[in-house]
């Protein structure tokens, strides 16, 4: 017959590893506050800080914050892509509108508008004939010439070889201060700068791009 000893009083003293062979149910058997030194937080809270609603003030720079209580938004308010692949041919020695335009409505009157033009399919029909460009801004039906003869003598060299195989490209940028919040259209104008032939932009349907970017003050 085996004698079984039943202990009816609580254990005192140190619990040995052997006595923990079955493990401790941390969910049900552990109460109280874990001391910080042993890895606990000394917190009995079951919820934590909501960074969205419970944090106020400026984060200190040393902890990764900037110390700023406000920020400046980006400077590019809008980017409008214009241009055309519809050609314009002219023998005019004064400037004529091309089909290459871009329309933008600035959101602030002190904004600047950065214009980027990339013209393709520049073609001339006769020896020593060349093209020049002009940039025009139109607001409310009133046109203002922004840059007389922005690029001159473009295409001059194309007459040295087979005409139809020699087409040039030309690009330029312009920073405008239109001082308006009204609808604004920019137009590329061209003219025959020299020679007796005609000049063409976007020959054979080659596309020219014309981009307007509003830059906030």
């Amino acid at each position, binding site marked *: 017959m085996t004698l079984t000893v039943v202990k009816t009083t609580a254990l005192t003293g140190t619990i040995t590893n052997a006595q923990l062979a079955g493990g401790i149910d941390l969910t049900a058997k552990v109460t109280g506050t874990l001391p910080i030194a042993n890895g606990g937080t000394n917190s009995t809270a079951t919820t934590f800080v909501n960074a969205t609603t419970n944090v106020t003030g400026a984060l200190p720079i040393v902890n990764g914050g900037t110390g700023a209580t406000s920020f400046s938004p980006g400077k590019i308010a809008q980017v409008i892509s214009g241009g055309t*692949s519809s050609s314009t041919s*002219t023998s005019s020695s004064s400037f004529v509108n091309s089909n290459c335009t871009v329309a933008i409505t600035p959101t602030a009157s002190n904004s600047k508008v950065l214009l980027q033009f990339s013209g393709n399919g520049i073609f001339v029909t006769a020896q020593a004939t060349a093209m020049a460009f002009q940039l025009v801004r139109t607001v409310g039906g009133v046109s203002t010439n922004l840059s007389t003869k922005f690029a001159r003598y473009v295409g001059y060299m194309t007459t040295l070889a087979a005409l139809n195989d020699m087409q040039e490209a030309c690009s330029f940028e312009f920073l405008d201060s239109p001082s308006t919040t009204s609808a604004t259209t920019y137009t590329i104008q061209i003219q025959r700068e020299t020679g007796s032939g005609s000049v063409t932009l976007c020959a054979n349907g080659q596309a020219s791009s014309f981009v307007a970017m509003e830059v906030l003050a």
Partner: protein
Amino acid sequence: MIDDINKFSTAINNLKANVEWTYNANNQLNSEEEFNKILWNTGVDSNGSAIQSTTNPHSELTWTAVKAEMDKL
């Protein structure tokens, strides 16, 4: 298209020198319908831009005459 522009430009020059015109389209410039889309310079404004009209001020530059000259080229 460029071939037509090239011939048209040369034909106009052969028939009457120093005539200034503009053609704003990707179409073949080989019909009277397209010829009637030509903008002819009639002056210059204060911006240095051409004043233009589709009314042809050059009586000798009819489509028939221009086409005949183009066909010679």
